[in-house]
């Protein structure tokens, strides 16, 4: 099997096929191209992103700043002002519903009830002038038919499930009275308040200390397992993603460059960028030894080079790299289903081997 015989397959390599035809995926982003128009040009933020999240699955998206991971998250919730972007190609479906074609009214119904989001900075995500409890009951009473009293009980039980020691007291507190970890737990309670089928967590623990980070991640997973919620975790932290997620998408310059089961991608990275990222981590090096930094810089999204976007920083580059590589399944795919990389060179190397 040569890469060329594969090149007419879709850019997305199917995740475990068994679950696929029965129920539509909770989130299905297909070949999405997004541009932000600027003076005499456009910032090509997403260049063919295909991400699929099945029911109850925990999926991670890793990438550095400018890789398009946050735009992907925001687009899935359609939180970007509609006149500021242009969809060149592709689609987003949430459990079969077309998100890009939905009206603003429909979106308001979906947001908060069927899909929820947790942001990086809980202090700016919570309203500083409202008590925490009110912010939760507002969401609950908007999306359900509960009475105010029931909504209050619901909110308190949600807080208790977040292992908050004194939920009644926290219910009446303002966000500034609480610690960062506590605020983030309130955000999680808020996100789970209407039992969404999908939770998008955009760097949920970046602003937290490591001891709190671990607890928050474990809480998130515990709640998700209990309610059958799928999680799309957006992060730059390879270690967090490898610990928390079942599947990983690695993004670079607005495209997915590698995807697969977390263990496969971390232990057997195929794309030179993923290899570079893992090699650059101080925990993978002998203390004091020079780190294997990726040379060069992330390309300007307003002026992407032709062909592979990683080309100028890559050690393996060859003639094939002048064409944009599709996501190609790796030959070792028999024992690692769904593991694919968008690289002409490493995939060929795998096929030859």
């Amino acid at each position, binding site marked *: 099997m040569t890469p060329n015989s594969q090149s007419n397959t879709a850019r997305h390599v199917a995740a475990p096929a068994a679950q696929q035809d029965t129920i539509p995926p909770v989130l299905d982003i297909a070949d999405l191209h997004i541009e932000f128009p600027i003076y005499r040009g456009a910032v090509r933020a997403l260049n063919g992103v295909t991400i699929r999240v099945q029911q109850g699955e925990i999926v991670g998206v890793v990438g550095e700043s400018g890789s398009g991971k946050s735009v992907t998250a925001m687009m899935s919730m359609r939180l970007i002002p509609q006149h500021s972007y242009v969809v060149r190609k592709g689609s987003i479906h949430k459990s079969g519903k077309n998100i890009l074609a939905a009206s603003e009214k429909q979106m308001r119904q979906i947001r908060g009830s069927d899909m929820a989001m947790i942001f990086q900075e809980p202090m700016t995500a919570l309203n500083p002038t409202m008590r925490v409890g009110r912010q939760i009951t507002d969401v609950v009473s908007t999306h359900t038919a509960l009475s105010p009293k029931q909504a209050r009980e619901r909110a308190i039980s949600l807080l208790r499930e977040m292992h908050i020691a004194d939920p009644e007291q926290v219910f009446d507190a303002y966000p500034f009275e609480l610690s960062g970890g506590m605020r983030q737990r309130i955000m999680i309670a808020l996100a789970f308040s209407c039992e969404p089928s999908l939770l998008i967590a955009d760097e949920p623990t970046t602003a937290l200390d490591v001891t709190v980070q671990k607890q928050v991640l474990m809480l998130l997973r515990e709640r998700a397992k209990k309610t059958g919620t799928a999680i799309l975790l957006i992060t730059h932290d390879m270690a967090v993603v490898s610990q928390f997620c079942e599947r990983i998408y690695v993004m670079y310059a607005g495209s997915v460059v590698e995807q697969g089961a977390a263990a496969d991608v*971390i232990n057997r990275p195929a794309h030179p960028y993923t290899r570079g990222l893992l090699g650059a981590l*101080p925990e993978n090096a002998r203390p004091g030894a020079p780190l294997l930094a990726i040379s060069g810089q992330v390309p300007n999204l307003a002026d992407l080079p032709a062909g592979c976007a990683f080309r100028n920083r890559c050690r393996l580059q060859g003639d094939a790299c002048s064409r944009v590589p599709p996501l190609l399944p790796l030959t070792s795919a028999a024992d690692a289903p769904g593991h694919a990389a968008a690289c002409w060179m490493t995939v060929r190397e795998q096929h030859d081997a």
Partner: protein
Amino acid sequence: MPDAVLTLDKIHVRFPVKRDWRGQARAWAHALNGVDLSVARGETLGVVGESGCGKTTLAQVLMGLQPPTQGQLRWHTDRGRPNVQIVFQDPQSSLDPRLPVWKIITEPSYVKGEARESAMRARAARLAEQVGLSPDYLNRYPHEFSGGQRQRIAIARALASDPDVIVLDEPTSALDISVQAQIINLLFELQRKHQLTYILISHNVSVIRHMSNRIAVMYLGQIVELGDTAQVLARQRHPYTRLLLDAVPVLGAPLPERAVQVIPELPGNRVLPTGCFFLDRCVFRTQGCERRQQLKPVSTDTPAHRVRCHRYDHDEPDGK
């Protein structure tokens, strides 16, 4: 310590948080509660701890930006007054947006009285080359650079006045992984070339592990464990160090499946605990914990490895 460049002796810092009608302080935030530390010439000392443990106040004391309320900071330098420089976390806000790069880099020597432009430009070009910036960029302004390049400018500025100590306050936490690796490599290379002394403040244990010779673990304004990095990380003694290292995400090791435990909150620093500061969160608490703890050597074999926990007074109580 032989060849110490700087010694901290029981440094306390507290800030007034509440005043009465006469303007006298009624309540205090206790940021540092007795820090004893000495820094050897040419070493990298890592300071690690959670937010609110006093890392940044310590940096401010070292810089002379915050006078200690109690205790003494002694510099052992030949030039009389200490020369200490800092590299901040966020290169976006720590560079003057209205100065060209060559002026930013040479500002420390400008402040010290050197004024000839041609000499300063030449100096800036030399420093820029050392940190891997093209000398062609010297007339540009900070906004024209990426985060990693800005951090290089900040490092060049710190080098400009030939400092005794460089305080690195979270130097890479605002940077992407691939850029972080470049900056860490650069810091190493400069240290080797110029025998620099670094005090590296970070919450990122893997960066500390990678870069520092010695590590100081801080909790609630005190150093709870101090010693050779490899030794401390391999055989950590203080329960807080254990808690901290357990929580560090490890590549490829799945999160434990056990149920989430109740999360203890960090104690406030307004009213200090009467006994051991870590008592509320400690799983090993026994008799003796109700007293204040002293930073003592773990055993006679390793006098440099010191821990603030009375359970080690009689050497390895739990047989570990």
